[in-house]
């Protein structure tokens, strides 16, 4: 055994041992040093500074530096945002810079019930800024920009009917009026030229959506969708509405918040449940129950609530059945009846409208305007279509079709659109077959409306 070879071993032992040691230390340091600990220490410093009594000071000093999280088993989420954003619920941190800022808008959405990411998106389990805010590869839910935050409301609440989310309601109204449903299905209603939009808000980024509205073929080559000429605020509103369509199925309590009890929701329920079968409003309806125009003057809201719960409890001998309304539904109906006296809520009960008026609603409902223009006036481009490279307008449809012919046309659609130049690509837009969607009474009303479009006093013939 010569000592030389052993000494060589010892040298290597020392070197490799130190190397492993250094790597362990570096690994430990990188694992231990996390920015959220700095934020917490800053927060604790601030708390100590503010303490006015020795007890408060001691309490602040004892605040542990630790991961803080909101466990939301029902939502299958763990939100650790409060590990850095420690003061979101403390108003005294009003003007502070992030991450220590107070967020005043959460009175109705307490953290212990909602957490953060269900609305703001991002990655709740993460504890570093980029990961938590979700701006990293392989995370599908980056934080919703503050500009579009109202999109989050649409996940739980009816979009059309949320006083706290006017942008969302605007986006929804635009969606229903410009005719998106002519090509796209949402909630099962709409055409099939374009893709379904039920989960579009989870799939697409705000930038993508915006670009897609302005110039569809820029982000989706060969898209048949005509560019949409929205003004900037409208564009943001419709993007916001698209972002709200995430297709998230929320459990129990959260799903029950769908309906915000409001007068317009009450109006919808009033129609849906067929109240005018027995009650008269604005001179129309059944005679079995009392007239309701002035019920808001006669009855208190509490009385109405009790009445919806169980009519006999407040009106012994009443023949009105117990409908089993939920608390929210009862409140919505009550709101509606209370407001009815102010005539602020238009009734628009379909059964009482003229066929052509009902037809206008149907024209709107299925998004016909998306291709045929508002009120069927045309003007939507359809490149290479023989009809002046546009989707034909419908003003004079009464001259070209009989009613049965028109019904047949709507039901069967027309897949092949004559091309202006056979050598160029076929026109992207065509008439889908609506037969399985629009039928019976709806079809009759729609045709009545289309025939009513012809300007009065004009004859095309000689």
């Amino acid at each position: 055994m010569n000592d030389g070879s052993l000494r060589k071993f010892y040298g290597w032992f020392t070197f490799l041992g130190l190397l492993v040691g250094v790597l362990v230390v570096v690994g430990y340091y990188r694992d231990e040093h996390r920015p959220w600990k700095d934020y917490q220490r800053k927060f604790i410093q601030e708390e100590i500074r503010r303490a006015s009594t020795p007890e408060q000071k001691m309490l602040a000093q004892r605040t542990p530096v630790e991961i803080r999280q909101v466990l939301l088993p029902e939502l299958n989420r763990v939100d650790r945002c409060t590990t850095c954003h420690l003061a979101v619920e403390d108003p005294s941190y009003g003007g502070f810079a992030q991450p220590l800022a107070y967020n005043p808008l959460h009175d109705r959405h307490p953290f212990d019930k909602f957490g953060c990411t269900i609305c703001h998106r991002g990655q709740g389990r993460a504890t570093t800024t980029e990961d938590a805010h979700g701006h990293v590869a392989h995370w599908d839910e980056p934080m919703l920009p503050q500009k579009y935050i109202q999109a989050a409301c649409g996940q739980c609440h009816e979009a059309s009917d949320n006083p706290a989310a006017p942008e969302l309601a605007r986006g929804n109204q635009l969606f229903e009026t410009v005719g998106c449903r002519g090509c796209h299905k949402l909630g099962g209603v709409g055409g099939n030229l374009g893709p379904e939009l039920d989960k579009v808000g989870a799939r697409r980024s705000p930038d993508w959506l915006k670009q897609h509205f302005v110039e569809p073929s820029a982000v989706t080559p060969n898209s048949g969708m005509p560019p949409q000429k929205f003004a900037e605020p409208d564009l943001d509103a419709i993007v916001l509405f698209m972002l709200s369509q995430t297709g998230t199925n929320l459990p129990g309590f959260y799903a029950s918040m769908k309906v915000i009890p409001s007068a317009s929701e009450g109006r919808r329920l009033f129609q849906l449940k067929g109240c005018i079968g027995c009650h008269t409003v604005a001179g129309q309806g059944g005679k079995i129950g009392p007239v309701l125009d002035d019920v808001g003057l006669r009855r208190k809201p509490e009385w109405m609530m009790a009445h919806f719960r169980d009519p006999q409890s407040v009106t012994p001998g009443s023949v009105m059945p117990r409908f089993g309304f939920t608390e929210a539904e009862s409140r919505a109906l009550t709101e509606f009846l209370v407001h009815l006296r102010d005539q602020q809520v238009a009734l628009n009960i379909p059964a009482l409208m003229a066929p052509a008026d009902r037809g206008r609603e149907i024209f709107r409902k299925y998004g016909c305007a998306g291709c045929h223009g508002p009120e069927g006036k045309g003007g939507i481009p359809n490149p290479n279509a023989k009809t002046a490279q546009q989707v034909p307008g419908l003003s004079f449809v009464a001259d070209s079709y009989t009613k049965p012919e028109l019904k047949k046309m709507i039901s069967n659609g027309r897949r092949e659109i004559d091309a202006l130049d056979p050598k160029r690509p076929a026109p992207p837009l065509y008439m889908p077959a609506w037969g399985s969607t629009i039928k019976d009474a709806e079809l009759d009303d729609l045709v009545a409306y289309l025939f009513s479009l012809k300007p009065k006093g004009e004859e095309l013939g000689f």
Partner: protein
Amino acid sequence: MNAPLPKRIWLWFTKTRVGRSIFRVGLPESNLERSQAMVSSFLLHVQPAKVNRHALRASYSLGLGLISLYLFFILIGTGVLLMFYYVPSTAQAYDVMKDLQFVVSAGMVVRNMHRWAAHLMVLFVMLHMCRVFYTGAYKAPREFNWVLGVGLFLLTLGLSFTGYLLPWDQLAFWAITVGTNIAGYAPFVGPKLKFLLLGGNIVGQDALTRFYALHVIVLPMIAGLMVSIHLWRVRKDGGLSRPDEQLGDEIATIPLNQLPTNKSYGLMELARGTTPQVGHNPEDEVFSWPHLIFREILLFLLVTAVVLFLAVFWNAPLEEFANPIHPPNPAKAPWYFLGLQELVSYSAFWGGVVVPGLLVTVLVMLPYIDRNRVGVGRWFARERVVANTIFSVCVVVAIVLTIIGTSFRGPNWGWVEPWQNPPTITEGH
């Protein structure tokens, strides 16, 4: 005495009552003690007291088998730590990965170590196999140990493949979907085999449960057992192969009833076959302590350092939560199967069944096909130029196919050049 301080402390400790009771021999100073140290320690007695100088030559073995073994140890250690957290449930597995990254102390480092050690082990087992081939070390009397080695190679792939699914992200889900689809191409048994492996027709909770059980219990136990037999056979077959080796096949055995009764016999004289001493020239031998043991410890430190280095600075991948509706395009198997996947893209039957089947069969039968005993114990022996050339061609083809599958295949398995921007994937509408 001018020994370094750690050594002096060690010497003092081994001479105390407690130290003696634990180490029995203490730090060996004489040759007798060096032998005793090896024989009297449970952990060391697996190895011989003396080894041939040739076996210690790093340029001969490259330490590849030992490196594979150490990686296996690291994998067991980190794997057990990961098991403390992991839940084999499709709903929770992915969240556990996130928690390991964001809230478990050193969780990410442990997962990284496990991941990189696993990839390295596949690589080093392959390299070890190449070394054994190029030095002709699979020839008699080591034929069966080669067969065990092929088994261990397949087990290593199996362990890596089953572990691949466990994070339950897109990468895991689609790699296993593609991998098990390849298994499904086998005639007759393929679909059944795939069904058995997945516990269904698609990758789901049942597949995760099965892969988990295979990954943490079944395969490691079999691998552990086979590693033990593999190592035991290395010693029983006369240590590492070397050029001047003599064959011990012709050693006569004396029938038991003819043994004189007035003499006690060592067990090796009664057993048939080669004894560990056959062909051992005392001049070629050195004591395992310290020559072998020190080298082994140094190599272990080196392997640990490399794995730690990779784990501290590079994170194991984790993609989106597994989504059976959205396959990535292209969906790729783990890298060691990408050569196969590339072959499958030409022909499912030939690439997925015939070629791998033939390859494994030939590998298993190799020592029984190539039976002459020339060129053992030397790298690239001239006498073995035909065998080496055939093997090299296979290795190069495998490497080229793997590189093509890894870097040159884009959407729809179309040809892409990695230095160009990948074509943007558009969705049809």
